[in-house]
């Protein structure tokens, strides 16, 4: 999965900025000029810690953000059409049909009062306008295609009667009912057992091939990313701090945050020496800084980090590997060198 599958991007997120209301009429910029793209049939992973903006990015693409969120700038382009310029009603033109999403905690995403199969049938009717009877047939077929045995009987099961893995299969059936071009999977297996996680991903990969679909995978599990994704965008504090092919990110991480993230991956297959990490004194992120939002925690922090927003620059030897860090900015590093020389000569 090393090659970029599609030359042409299916979805481009360009300089997307989103803010939420904060105290005293101020706004918190939770996404600050976020850019990445997803090629056709490609799986892109969005990784980062809680609060990094992964889920807000996904919800903004889906037009499902909270009403208090505002998009302050940028574009989300699906096949040359900017999704952000459409009005609310037209969101339905692509949401659920061209782009579908599955969520963490599948049981919480299903309506507890409606039979699982009927919930799939509703989606089918909404998008395909078929009769009730036909919708039920399609729903049972979809349930079979996502590996639910005994689909006719399970159609009548209520969500509480399903296991977590089964509920996620129902969500996948619902998401795929209109054969979307892009599936957004937000931590689809968090909270599920590892053998069920494996089954769900095996299913997703099969369906992705079968439906020639792209996938945006949101997760914080880098091992899972390594096994499933083509490219990775690493988010921290609402910035994409590093992006590139999965091998480049895992083997040659460039941004100090990515380095910390990759360095904290424990392995089940062998014992590794882990360098002791100091607990980060400040866990919260200053969203108002004009500089790098990782600077307060960064061991390489220097002159411009607190005040100047780093540029997104090509790093390493792999094409498409970028990082947003002053360490790779020749001009900034040069200035640091001359400063140091000046100090020495004083």
């Amino acid at each position, binding site marked *: *999965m*090393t090659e970029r599958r599609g030359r042409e991007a299916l979805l481009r997120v360009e300089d997307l900025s989103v803010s939420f209301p904060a105290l005293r009429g101020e706004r918190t910029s939770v996404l600050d000029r976020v850019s990445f793209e997803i090629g056709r049939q490609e799986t892109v992973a969005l990784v980062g*810690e*809680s609060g990094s903006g992964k889920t807000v990015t996904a919800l903004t693409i889906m037009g499902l953000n909270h009403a208090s969120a505002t998009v302050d700038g940028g574009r989300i382009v699906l096949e040359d059409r900017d999704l952000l310029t459409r009005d609310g009603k037209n969101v339905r033109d692509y949401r659920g049909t061209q782009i579908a999403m599955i969520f963490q905690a599948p049981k919480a995403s299903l309506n507890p009062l409606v039979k699982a199969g009927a919930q799939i049938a509703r989606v089918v009717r909404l998008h395909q306008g078929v009769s009730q009877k036909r919708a039920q047939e399609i729903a049972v077929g979809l349930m079979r295609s996502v590996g639910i045995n005994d689909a006719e009987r399970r159609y009548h099961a209520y969500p509480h009667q399903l*296991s*977590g*893995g*089964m509920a996620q299969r129902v969500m996948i059936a619902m998401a795929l009912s209109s054969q979307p071009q892009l599936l957004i999977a937000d931590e689809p297996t968090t909270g599920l*057992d*590892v*053998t*069920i*996680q*494996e*089954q769900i991903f*095996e299913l997703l990969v099969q369906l992705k091939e079968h439906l020639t679909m792209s996938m945006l995978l949101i997760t*914080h*599990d*880098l*091992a*899972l*990313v*390594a*096994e499933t994704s083509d490219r990775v965008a690493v988010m921290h504090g609402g910035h994409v701090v590093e992006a590139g092919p*999965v*091998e480049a990110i*895992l083997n040659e991480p460039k941004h100090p945050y990515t380095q*910390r*993230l*990759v360095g*904290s*991956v*424990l*392995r*089940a*297959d*062998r*014992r*590794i020496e*882990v360098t*002791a*990490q*100091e*607990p*980060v*004194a400040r*866990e*919260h992120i200053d969203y108002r800084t004009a500089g790098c939002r990782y600077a307060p925690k960064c061991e390489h922090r220097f002159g411009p980090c607190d005040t100047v927003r780093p540029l997104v620059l090509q790093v390493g030897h792999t094409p498409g590997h970028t990082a947003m860090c002053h360490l790779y900015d020749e001009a900034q590093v040069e200035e640091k060198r001359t400063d140091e020389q000046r100090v020495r000569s004083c």
Partner: protein
Amino acid sequence: MNNASAPADTAPLLEVVDLEKRFRAHGQVVHAVNGVSFSVFPGETVALVGESGCGKSTTARCIVRLTDPTEGRILYRGRDVSSISRRAFRSLRPEIQMVFQDPGASLNPSMTIRQTLREPFRLHNGARRNDLEAHVQQSMRLVQLEPALLNRRPDQLSGGQKQRVGIARAIASNPSFVVLDEPTSSLDMSLRLSLLQLLKDLQRRLGMTYLFITHDFSAVRHVADRVVVMYLGKVMESGLVDDVLDDPKHPYTQVLIAAIPVPETRTRPRAKLRGETPSALRPIVGCPFQERCPHVMEECRQGEIPFFDVGSRKVACLRYASVAPTEATAARGSE
């Protein structure tokens, strides 16, 4: 936390013998824990692992007496504590402590961190009022939290900070034995590592013994000495961590370990596990894994499966019947 097996001449700190816990649900009986045996030796970390519903948390709750065992014995320092009254168990509370899975739900939201951390010192150690603050400050230092956080309430702390408070509370009474019930499952990867490092460090400094309940094999590899793998209320395999994880012998352990993603971009051959764990409501005769096992034989469906010695491990699988069976049917780890 050394990697060697416990010396044979050391007495176990904790011994679980044929533990059973049955619940009644929908007029039926659920065998949550069905004849589980293992030992934990002083100073070591034993990981109790398995998927949801395998009985690992129920086993832990029986040990710390948050629920009463139905049958079997739990020996702590050689004394059976499973049948003593809850009141009598109270005298053991300072010695046997637990860190809970969800730090948000296990801290009192209306108490400040200072109030929460004072409790164990008042209850267990009978500390004098004047000394309480010094004890609380010391606890905060041990778990590497700033004393300024003492005035806050749980909702003003991050998940990682809350779990450190949970650890501080558990170790306040200077326990010998601590049950860690999935202490990192609600944390991000980078926080998870620093918390595991902290637990290892505290164990070394304070000489504690851990029973680590988890489904995270990479954490097991990182912190545990021995591992006990459970499935549907029974022990399937136990042994030294490196042996079991590098070369699992039970067909269940094999598929379980094969399912764990590793941070490398290569497609690896995998033994796949089909289906889901069957309901614990339906009694199963023989091996609990029979319905999903690729190697199932007729004998697997008949009667109790004994444990067989395979290298350092004990494996409850008839495929190893050609190797001499162990005398007891209990998996007592790898003494």
